[in-house]
């Protein structure tokens, strides 16, 4: 099968993935709005199916492009959505509450929708991007951003939890505020660890490619700002007054920084990362 054929298959898979994520989002909304448990379970299966097809789409694109599919806006956006889906499924499996999906799937759908608007053209890599560090650097960014996406969803859930009427359904399907706070903390911990890894691998790669491990390039600077925001979240959680609601607000701000680092910096601020 030629590379064009692989890319055609990837195109089809990507469309199927979008449909599945949309379906999962609708099912999760039904689960929460109509309180139908079966809809929640079905949404979980649809998400898992979407994730499998999404993985297949990324692998197919990688084969079609002859390299890791992590080098342009489309590829990173779809990988970013995949990362959030992966982290969501891990957290779903570990903490077992389906309602998280109602808050995560809109984020995934928005990001994959952004991917759909980008050019899917496969271009050869410029020499600076032809490095083994590309795979390490960007794949850790996907995990980091994915975990931050989950913490964003959990924190939103936390902030809305207080406004929900405390019915038996909510009690059964949505953890209490203390547990939501703890889960958000776990997600931020994972994201923060990987973001640190992203910054370090990026610095090593930059040192090899550009001769300077830190140049205050806008992308580097915004990664640092995001790192500082989450470092503040982690420190402020130690203060009694900042736990819970304030921490949740900080986690939301942190994810907005992540989104700006990814989309805003690339589109609004020129720099040496402008190809990303």
């Amino acid at each position, binding site marked *: 099968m030629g590379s064009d054929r692989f890319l055609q298959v990837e195109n089809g898979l990507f469309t199927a993935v979008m449909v599945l994520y949309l379906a999962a989002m609708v099912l999760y909304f039904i689960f929460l709005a109509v309180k139908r448990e079966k809809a929640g379970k079905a949404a979980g299966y649809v998400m898992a199916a979407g994730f499998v097809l999404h993985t297949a789409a990324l692998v197919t694109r990688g084969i079609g492009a002859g390299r890791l599919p992590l080098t342009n806006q489309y590829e990173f956006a779809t990988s970013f959505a995949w990362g959030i889906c992966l982290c969501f499924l891990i957290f779903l499996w570990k903490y077992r509450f389906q309602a998280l999906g109602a808050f995560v799937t809109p984020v995934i759908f928005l990001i994959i929708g952004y991917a759909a608007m980008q050019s899917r053209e496969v*271009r*050869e890599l*410029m*020499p*600076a991007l*032809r*490095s083994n560090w590309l795979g390490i650097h960007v794949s850790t960014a996907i995990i980091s951003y994915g975990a931050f996406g989950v913490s964003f969803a959990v924190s939103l859930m936390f902030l809305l939890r207080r406004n929900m009427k405390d019915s038996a359904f909510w009690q059964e399907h949505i953890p209490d505020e*203390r*547990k939501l706070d*703890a*889960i958000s*903390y*776990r997600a931020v*911990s*994972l994201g*923060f*660890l990987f973001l*640190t*890894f992203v*910054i*370090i691998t990026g*610095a*090593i790669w930059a*040192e*090899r*490619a*550009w*001769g*300077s*491990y*830190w140049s*205050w390039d*806008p992308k580097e*600077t*915004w990664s*640092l*700002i995001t790192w*500082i*925001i989450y*470092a*503040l979240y982690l*420190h*402020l*959680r*130690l*203060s*009694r007054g900042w736990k819970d609601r304030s921490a949740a607000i900080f986690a939301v701000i942190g994810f907005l920084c992540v989104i700006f680092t990814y989309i805003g*910096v690339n589109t609004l*601020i020129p720099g040496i990362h402008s190809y990303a």
Partner: protein
Amino acid sequence: MDQLKKVWRFLRSMKFAVILLLILAAACTAGSVIPQGQPTAWYTEHYAQQAAGAVMLLGLDDVFHCWWFVALTLFLCLNLLLCSVLRFPALLRRMREGFTPARAIAAWDWAPLAKLEGEPERLFAKLGFHSVRSGKMAVHLPDGNSGAAEGTEADEAETDRVEADGAETDRVETDRLKAAESADGRPVRYAVKYKAGLWGAWLCHLGMLVVIAGFGLGQMFKSEYTVYGVPGQTKPVGDTGYELTIDDFSIALRDDDTVDQYTSEITVTDTAGGEQLGGSASVNAPLSLFGMKFYQNSTGWAATLETWKDGKKLQEDLLCAGEYAAIADLEGLAVVFNAFYPDYAEDESGQPVTLSSALKNPGYLYTIYYHDQVVGMNVLTAGEKITVEDYEFIFRDPQPYTLIQVKRDPFRYLAAAGGLLVLCALILAFYLYPRELWAVQDEDGVWCFGGRSAKAGLLFAEEIGRAWADLKKEEQSDGK
């Protein structure tokens, strides 16, 4: 004196660190949004007068090197240093004395997270606790169950305070311990794992200090030079005492004419000792020689400029785009080779452009100066010549030149070590943090389990509950 104490307390406080981080984040935001390193005129042209004035006054045109940004970073280092030094004894004490069954059980609210008959070691093993200490302790188990989650949340808050202030926690625990140490003799099992994780946050702060120190020292002591030229040229590497010879320079193209790789073959000579070392440098693969790193940084076009007068060649200069040649025959006369267009054409507005990167129709943009006055400026194509009074100029033999960046930063390894330390410390802090598990046997011979962890105590309590449920299921299925 009180004022001094207040300042001292503030300098080492988390509050100060948070304020510094917030200001640094804001400064970084400004530094990324406002173009850096532009001349003053650029800001007055692009911003309102007051905004441009504020940019220049606050040093926002070069945020990352201005005095207040450096001062904030130094204050952050001071805060990290003080925090690390002052927390060290408390952490050491907690490491040595903090993990004991007496302390853990004394701080327990007596709410069992699991209950087990028979050997309690089964649950310890299931949760990955392998060195289980056994003994007897004076404890009294109340009848009521005050709720597992409350107990672990209290533990979490307590261990969180260790991060903030170890001394306070120790005092609280000691008070409870006295209450627990009245005589009795109940069988107890206790285990702790990942004690080293207690140092996670501390090591992370230390790692950050090392990173900042490595970066700062690197900024002060690193040396950086650029050498550019065409194959065959030898040029000095700044004032290092070394010379760099460009043996070859190649640009590998793909089928679609895009660049696959730039490679320079170079030889470096120690002018003092005569020692020579060489190799190839390409993008993403720098060359290390004589303690320096040679990076394939950039490329451009060079050409030979011939200067003629009365049918006689006066001089020949090899110029890279951007360079100039002073004409020795007439003081004040100079030719600047501004730019090169390998596939020259003009766009709709008459501006010079290149249609491709292939060398099809070379065009040389030049400017001629005589005593700083422009006396000629145009684009010269192949076969054309420039005539100024008695002088004629010809550009020929365009060829790509290579630009090699030479760097020496002895402190980059320090920054790398700091980064690695931060990463390891975060793993300790987030995943390998201390967890304690204990079991106390009640009057009916049932083992009541308690546990606490330095982070996410609520989730650890759930983990214990899940392991307990799994264990029961396994034993039930084994029994069948």
